């Protein structure tokens, strides 16, 4: 069997290709980006004509994937955890409509917030949607789950969620790849009304979903990803979910864990396996990365007073990702201490690159804002969020994709005039346009600065969806054309930029300033590729 050294993210991509996927849909977001990029760079995916172009946002991606499933083909949609919030509407409703071709939603969570604004646990979203969830413990399972997940999806005509975390997504290991399955042919859904969620139909569909719950549990009981390991010492029983299983094994390198273990890789939880463990052992330790979902859930179906230890009761930390040392402490094993970090070591936060256009935008904005008052610059998600840190200290918010414009509008409604929004080009097309329309409709006194570097830069410089068309989009939405200003953010135009910003900040209505200069990283990459040719 051929083995490839793959990131967890890449293992999922390869698994999906080998599982007969016809299209992948996504918006870039760390730690999920590499799944789609792998498909984009895969020769075999190109030969098989697998769709892999980026979508404008996670909601459009989710809906397009559902459309591909409607037409009978196998589709995957991927996103980071907060992307699932954006896609929540079609995600939850896809569980009600059900699917035709297999549909897998892969969500990469980021416990410890390495590159995110929260550490929400997508298993809750899967549970909320009442669909099966697969959670790989290693790269091989990531591959297997993606490859075989489509069949699970098609068997019950349900979407399936694959949940991974940063650590697995961005860690490499050898993966044995298997035979490639063929893609589905186009077929239409048997039931023409299946996807029409009018209340009368939705009620029927919801009952089907509820009826399926017992089947989903039965699948979990028999899943190869859920295993019971008998131990000799019954003083403790361990439930280890996803990657936490590896941290457990790390502490018993000779395969000598004395306790019984239930390894969880598929949800809804296998009640029988867990009840067996609970009945046989004096107390339970739950190891799970993310929120205490399992710890909470099992208390709902087996609680006659035995101690259940985990993140919820405080034996393990409530936040942050797990690691082998935390797990060792939870098991009561001795841990080694390395040396402390000496005081001389200073923090080194990320920073905007030298020559980055966002720098010039913030230089100008900070100067322009001097006469308009402080703490009124709302911003957004992207490299330019680093403008919140020294030396710029230029922005006052970063909440979710697109929130800069709408928060500025709301603040302006409350009398904070002028209010400013700083947003990137890709974030603007992801979720900023509708907010701009709100502002235009009320002629809100806000100035929107689109710091346009013509790339989805933070995640590695992917194609931004409306490069070169932002001005037309703003005018099309209804911003007066004389208040859509385009600037070239380079140091030599600093004074001109400051003047334009001041003019538009003084305007009592919606103005948009597009500061347009390509990301220094993508520009230099292109230059290198060109010089090679």
């Amino acid at each position, binding site marked *: 069997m051929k083995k490839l050294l793959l990131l967890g993210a890449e293992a999922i991509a390869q698994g999906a290709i080998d599982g007969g996927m016809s299209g992948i849909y996504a918006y870039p977001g760390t*730690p999920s980006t590499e799944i789609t990029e792998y498909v984009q760079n895969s020769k075999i995916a190109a030969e098989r004509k697998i769709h892999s172009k980026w979508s404008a946002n996670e909601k459009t991606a989710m809906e397009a994937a559902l459309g591909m499933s409607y037409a009978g083909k196998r589709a995957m949609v991927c996103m980071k955890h907060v992307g699932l919030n954006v896609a929540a509407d079609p995600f939850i409703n896809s569980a009600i409509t059900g699917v035709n071709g297999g549909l897998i939603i892969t969500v990469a969570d980021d416990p410890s917030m*390495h590159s995110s604004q929260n550490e929400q646990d997508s298993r809750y979203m899967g549970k909320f949607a009442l669909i099966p969830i697969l959670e790989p413990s290693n790269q091989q399972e990531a591959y297997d789950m993606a490859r075989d997940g489509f069949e699970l999806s098609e068997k019950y005509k349900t979407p399936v969620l694959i949940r991974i975390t940063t650590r697995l997504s961005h860690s490499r290991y050898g993966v044995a790849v298997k035979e490639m399955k063929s893609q589905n042919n186009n077929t239409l859904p048997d039931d023409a009304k299946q996807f029409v969620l009018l209340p009368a139909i939705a009620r029927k569909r919801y009952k089907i979903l509820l009826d399926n719950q017992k089947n989903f549990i039965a699948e979990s009981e028999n899943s190869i990803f859920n295993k019971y390991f008998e131990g000799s010492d019954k003083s403790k029983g361990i439930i280890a979910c996803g990657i936490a299983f590896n941290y457990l*094994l790390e502490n018993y390198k000779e395969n000598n864990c004395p306790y019984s273990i239930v390894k969880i890789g598929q949800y809804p939880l296998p009640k029988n396996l867990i009840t067996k463990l609970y009945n046989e052992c004096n107390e339970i330790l739950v190891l799970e990365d993310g929120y205490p979902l399992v710890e909470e859930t099992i208390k709902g179906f087996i609680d006659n007073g035995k101690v259940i230890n985990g993140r919820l009761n405080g034996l393990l930390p409530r936040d942050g990702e797990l690691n082998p040392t935390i797990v060792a402490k939870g098991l009561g094993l001795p841990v080694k*201490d*390395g*040396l402390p970090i000496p005081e001389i*070591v200073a*923090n080194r936060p990320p920073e905007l690159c030298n020559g980055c256009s966002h720098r010039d935008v913030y230089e100008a904005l900070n100067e322009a804002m001097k006469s308009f008052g402080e703490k009124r610059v709302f911003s957004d998600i992207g490299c330019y969020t*680093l403008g919140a840190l020294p030396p710029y200290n230029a922005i006052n918010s970063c909440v979710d994709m697109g929130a800069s414009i709408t928060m500025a509008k709301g603040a302006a409604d409350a009398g904070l005039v002028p209010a400013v929004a700083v947003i990137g080009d890709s974030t603007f097309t992801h979720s900023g346009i509708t907010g701009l329309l709100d502002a235009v409709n009320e002629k809100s006194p806000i100035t929107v600065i689109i710091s346009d570097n013509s790339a989805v830069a933070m995640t*590695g410089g992917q194609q931004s969806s409306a490069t070169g068309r932002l001005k037309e989009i703003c005018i099309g939405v209804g911003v007066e054309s004389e208040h859509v200003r385009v600037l070239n953010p380079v140091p030599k135009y600093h004074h001109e930029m400051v003047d334009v910003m001041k003019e538009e900040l003084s305007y009592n209505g919606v103005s948009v300033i597009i500061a347009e200069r390509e990301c220094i990283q993508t520009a230099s990459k292109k230059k290198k590729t060109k010089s090679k040719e």
Partner: protein
Amino acid sequence: MKKDIILSGVGGQGILSIAAIIGFAALEKNLFVKQSEVHGMSQRGGAVESHLRISDKEIASDLIPFGEADLIISVEPMESLRYLPFLSKDGWIITNTTPFVNIPNYPDLELLLKQINSYKNVIAFNAEEIAKKIKAPKTSNVVILGAASPFLEIPYENLVSGIKTLFGRKGEDIVTMNINALNAGIEESKKYTITAL
């Protein structure tokens, strides 16, 4: 055989290239390799680390437990100290001494080097200078890898072949430069009394 290695530096300094070369070499020797990387925000000039684990047996955890790393291989002096909680008591620090100064409160270099040399097992030298001397600019990361190679228990030929695999498509010149850098690093390590791990 088991080696747990923390690679550290600043985003963009090439620690993933070191990881890739060791990774390719280890695979060629039919060893198991597990390597976690940093993607996303911290790649923008922030502190970055990679956990690289090599073993002749299956590897469970993607992360190295605290106090169990055999080596810290760092391409930047201050970053060589950030991950000390991972280093085992007999572990080695192999680090470049050329600072990457992109913060206003970067410590005094002399004090920093004094701190680094206060630890038991240290190889610290100016890899930048060596790379310049052998006319192989931008290979200081591979010079550092060379200096760390005596600890890896991976034969020289496999490391060379790892370099060829990684840099092959960039042309012969780049491959040769990096092999020279590896050799120069190995030479440098000979100045130190290396105790077994």
